[in-house]
C-alpha cells in the first residue's frame, strides 16, 4: 500500500512536469501562392536565387515592373510549377532562343525553361560544375565548367552536349565579341582568346589577374574584365579593359589585396560600369582609375548582385542578408535613393529582363 502510494505520488509529479512542458514552438511560415500565371515579355524580370552551397534551396523569382502585378514579387517559381526543387547553387541564367537556361552549378545541370510559364522543357546533364552558358551561333552554345578542363559544346536543338573544347583549365566567364570568344578562369591570371569559327583551341591569352569572374562589353565595344585576385599568394585583383579587335590589353586598374570585387555589369546605355566590392561602385567607361567611394554603401547589407532594366534609370541590387534566410532586392532611382524593397529567395545573384 505504501509502495503504491509512493509510486502514485511519483507518477503525479512526473505528469505535472510533463504537463508544464507542453510548450509552444514556431510553426512554418505560409508559402508563396502558387505561381499559376504567365509572364508577359517586357513586364518584369527574373531573379535567380543561388541558395546555400549544399542546402539545395536555389530558386527563381519574378519581379513585375508593369501590368496588374507591378511592384509585386513571385517566388519559388520553378518548384511550384514543376513540382521539383531547382537544385543546388543556381549559378547563372541566360535567355537563348526564347528559352531560359538556368545553370545549376552543384547539381551539375542546366534547366531549360519556357519563360512564359516556367515549365521545364529540358534538363542538360553530364556537366562538371557548370558556371555560365553563352550562345555562339544559331545552333550552338558553350558552357564553362569549373570542375573540368573543357568547355562543353551544346547543341541548342537537342539540348545535349555534343563536344568539348580543351581549355586545359577550369573556366568561368565567357563573352563573344567581334568574332572572338573570351574566357576567364578562376584558377589562372589569364584571359583566353579563341578565334572563330570553330573556337576549337586557345589562340592567344592576355595576362590580367587571378580570379577573373565577370566580363561585360561597353557601349564603345570594349571588353571589361573583373578579377578578384588570389589571397593565398596576395595577388591583388583588378579591372581590365581589352580591345577585342586586336585583342590587346588597353587599361589595367589594380585593386588592393584587401578587396574582393565581383559582379561587373554595364548599364543599358553602356557608358557606366558597376561592380560589387562590399559596396556598389560606379564608374564611367572613360575613367582611367577605380572609383574611391562607393555609389551605394554596403554597410548593413550583404550585396550580392546588380542589375539594370532597359528603359529605366533604376538600379536593382540583390541583398543576401545573412545567406541563410530569404534575400531582398532593392530598387534605387538614378540618384541612388532606395525606392522599393522586396523579398526573394536565398542569395539573389542574377537578374534577367524578360
Amino acid at each position, binding site marked *: 500500500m505504501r*509502495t503504491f502510494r*509512493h*509510486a502514485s*505520488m*511519483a507518477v*503525479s*509529479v*512526473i505528469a*505535472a*512536469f*510533463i504537463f*508544464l*512542458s507542453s*510548450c509552444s*514552438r*514556431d510553426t*512554418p*511560415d505560409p*508559402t508563396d501562392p502558387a505561381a499559376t500565371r504567365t509572364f508577359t515579355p517586357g513586364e518584369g524580370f527574373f531573379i535567380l536565387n543561388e541558395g546555400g552551397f*549544399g*542546402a*539545395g*534551396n536555389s530558386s527563381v523569382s519574378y519581379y513585375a515592373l508593369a501590368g496588374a502585378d507591378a511592384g509585386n514579387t513571385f517566388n519559388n517559381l520553378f518548384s511550384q510549377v*514543376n*513540382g*521539383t*526543387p531547382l*537544385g*543546388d547553387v543556381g549559378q547563372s541564367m541566360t535567355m537563348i532562343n526564347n528559352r531560359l537556361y538556368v545553370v545549376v552549378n*552543384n*547539381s*551539375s*545541370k542546366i534547366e531549360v525553361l519556357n519563360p512564359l510559364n516556367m515549365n521545364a522543357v529540358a534538363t542538360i*546533364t553530364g556537366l*562538371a*560544375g557548370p558556371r555560365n552558358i553563352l550562345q555562339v551561333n544559331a545552333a550552338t552554345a558553350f558552357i564553362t565548367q569549373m*570542375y*573540368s*578542363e573543357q568547355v562543353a559544346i551544346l547543341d541548342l536543338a537537342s539540348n545535349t552536349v555534343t563536344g568539348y573544347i580543351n581549355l586545359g583549365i577550369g573556366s568561368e566567364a565567357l563573352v563573344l565579341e567581334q568574332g572572338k570568344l573570351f574566357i576567364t578562369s578562376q584558377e589562372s591570371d589569364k584571359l583566353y582568346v579563341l578565334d572563330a569559327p570553330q573556337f576549337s583551341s586557345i589562340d592567344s591569352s592576355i595576362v590580367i589577374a587571378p580570379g577573373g569572374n565577370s566580363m561585360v562589353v561597353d557601349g564603345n565595344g570594349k571588353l571589361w574584365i573583373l578579377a578578384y585576385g588570389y*589571397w*593565398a599568394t596576395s595577388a591583388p585583383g583588378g579591372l581590365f579593359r581589352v580591345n577585342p579587335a586586336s585583342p590587346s590589353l588597353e587599361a589595367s586598374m589594380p585593386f588592393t589585396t*584587401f*578587396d*574582393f570585387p565581383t559582379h561587373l555589369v554595364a548599364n543599358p546605355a553602356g557608358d557606366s560600369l558597376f561592380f560589387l*566590392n*562590399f559596396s556598389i561602385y560606379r564608374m564611367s567607361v572613360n575613367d582611367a582609375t577605380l572609383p574611391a567611394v562607393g555609389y551605394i554603401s554596403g554597410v*548593413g*547589407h*550583404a550585396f550580392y548582385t546588380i542589375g539594370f532594366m532597359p528603359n529605366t534609370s533604376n538600379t536593382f541590387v540583390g*541583398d*543576401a*542578408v*545573412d*545567406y*541563410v*534566410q*530569404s534575400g*531582398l532586392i532593392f530598387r534605387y532611382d538614378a540618384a541612388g535613393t532606395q525606392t522599393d*524593397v522586396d523579398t526573394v529567395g*536565398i542569395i539573389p545573384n542574377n537578374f534577367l529582363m524578360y
Partner: protein
Amino acid sequence: MKKSFIACCLLVVSGVLHAQDTAVFHLNLDAVDILKARMEQSGVRRDITDSTIARLYPAGTLTDLLGGGGVLTLKSYTAGGLSTMSIRGANSMQTPVVWNGINLQNTNNNTVDLSLLPVFLFDQVAVQPGSSSAAWGSGAIGGVIKLTSLPRDRSSNGNYLRNPYLNHKVVFEYGSFGANMFGVKVGGGKGQWTYDLKLYRQHSLNNFWFTNTSFAQPRRQQLNHATMRQQGFMTEVYFDPKNPNNQFVLRMWVQETHREIPPTMLQSVNEATQKDYACRIMSEWFSFPTSRIKINTRAAVIHEGLLYNPGFSQPINNTNAWTYIAESEMTYDFGQRDTKVLNNLRLSGGLNAMYATSEVTESIPHKEQLRMSMYASIGKALRESDEFNITVRDEIIDGKMIDPVGSIWYYLSLKKWLAIRTCVSHSYRVPTFNDLYWTPGGNPDLLPETSWTEEITVDVRPRWKTGYISYSVTAYNRNVKDMITWVPNAAFWSPLNVAEVWSRGMEHRLKYFQAVSRWKFTFLANADYVRSTYEKTNTTNDVSIGKQLIYVPAWFGGATATAQWKDYFITYAHQYTDLRFTTRDHVEWLPAYSIANLAVGWNWKSNLNGGVYWMNLFFRCNNIFDEQYESMAWRPMPGRSYMIGFSIDFSKQKEITE
C-alpha cells in the same frame, strides 16, 4: 519572461516535497572519487548510457549509441558520415567530448565527429548537459560528453581486484549495406602491472536504397560513393608502485578513417573523399600522500590530421594539428571536524597548460597558441546528504587574460527518493584557429563567447522490493553573448562577436524497472523541449530575431522498452525528432520523423575455468517502419536495415570485497 519561467518551475517543485533522509554523498575519496572533484558535479544531471541500450551497439560508434537510443539530437550527413551533436540548442563547438579528462575537440573547428568514436573503446559513456566551463574550461557551454575508462583495480561492483587477472573481449556486428565491425580486447595483469590492448576495425559500403524526392516523380536510388572504413587501436597500461598510494597510467589511441563523401539527392556525382587521422597519448599519475590529500597529474600529446580531397582535380586540403597538454589538480579533504566551518569541507585546485599548433593548406599558415588556466573549488557537505560547491576558473591565452568564469551548485536530498540539484554557471568558448587565423577573413581580435546558465533538476527515485523508478526533470535557461558568427565583412567573410542566443527548455529522463517472477521489464524515456532563439545579430533586415535556430528541433525524445525472460530479451526503441527549420526566416524546413528499432537477443553468463564468461548475442532491425527521412537537407538516411552481432567477455580475477 525568463524570471517567470524559472519561478514557475520552483513553485511546482515546492509543492511536492516530502521529508526523508538518505546519504548520497561519500566523504571517503579514492581513485575514482578524485575524479569526482571535477568530473562529476552533483549539481547537474548526468546521463549514463543504459546497459539495455549499450548491449545493442557493442561494436558501433557514438552516433549509433547516442542517436539510436534517442539520447541526443544529432546532425548526421548520412550513415557513416559526419555526425555532430546538439545539446539544449547549442552547437557542437559548444559541447566538448572529454576522454579521461582530456578534451578531444579539434583546435581548428572545436568539433568532434561522433561517427569516428567506437563505443568499444570506452567503459562508460555519459552525457552531462549544462554549462560547466568552470570544471572543463573552454567550450563547455551546451554540455559535456564524457568517455571514461573505469579504473582497472576495481570490478564493476566497486570492489578491489588483485592481480593476476585476465579480461578478454570480442565484439562483432554485421549487417545491411556491407556493414561489419569487429573489435578484440586483450587485457590482463600480473604483479604491479595491468594492461589492455583493444584493436578494432569497421567497414561499411552504405549503399542503401532511398527515395530521391528531388524529382517530380520520386524515384528509388542507391547511394553511391559512400564507403567508410576505420581501423585503430587503444592500449592502457597501469603500474602500481610498491608505494600503495600511487598509480601510473599510460594510454595510447591511434586510429585512421577513410570516407567517401556521397552525393546529395540534388547531385549526380561526388568525387570528394576524406581521411581522418588521430594519435592520442596520455599519461596520468594518481597520488594519495595522505588520507586527506589527493593529487592527479595528467599529460597528453594529440596529433590529428584531416585530408580532404574535393575531387574533380581540385586542390587537396590538408589539416595538421598538434596539441600538448599538462595539468595537475589537488584536493584536500578536511573530513569530519569539530569546527563547523571545516567539517566535511573539501578544497580543490588545478593548473592546466595547453600548447597547440595547426596549419591548413593555403588557409592557415603555421600558427601556435599557448593557454594556461587555473581553477579553485570549495565544496562542503552541509548535512549527511547535502552538498554545495563553488568553482572559479580563469585562463590566459597567448598572454591575454580572459574574464573569469565560475559555477555554484547545490545538491539537496530531501527524501530517500527525492533530491533537487541547482546550478548557476558562467561559461565561455574561445575562438577556434579557423576563426582566428583563416585566410582570408580570420579575426585575431575575436573575444570568447560567454554564457550564463541557470538550471534546476528534480530527481524522483522511489524504490520498492521488485522495482524502482528513476525520474529527473530539468528546467534550464541559458544566454549566450558574443557568439561568433561568420558575416560578410568588406572584402571577405569574417567572424565577429555579434550574436546573442537565448536557450531555455525542459528535459525529462525516466527509467522504470520492474521484476515479475522471472521477467524483468525496463522502460526508458526521455523528452527534451528546446526553445533556442536568436536575440541579436549584426544583420540589417534580419527577420530571424526571436525565431528558433535552424536544425534545432523544438521537441526531441525517445522511449525504449525491454522485456527480459531469463537470458532472453526483446527491446523496442522509438525516437521522435520534431520539425527543423533550415533557413533562419523559417520559409524552409525538414518535417518531423520517427524512427523505431527492434532487437531480440540473448545474454548468457557462465563460470568456467575459474573465470566468468559473458556472452551477448543480438539481432537488431533498425528503422523497422522504413521511414524515409533526412537529418540534414537532401542527404538521404537509410531505411530499414538489419544487424546481427555478439560480444564475448571473459574475465578471471580475484575480487576482494570490503
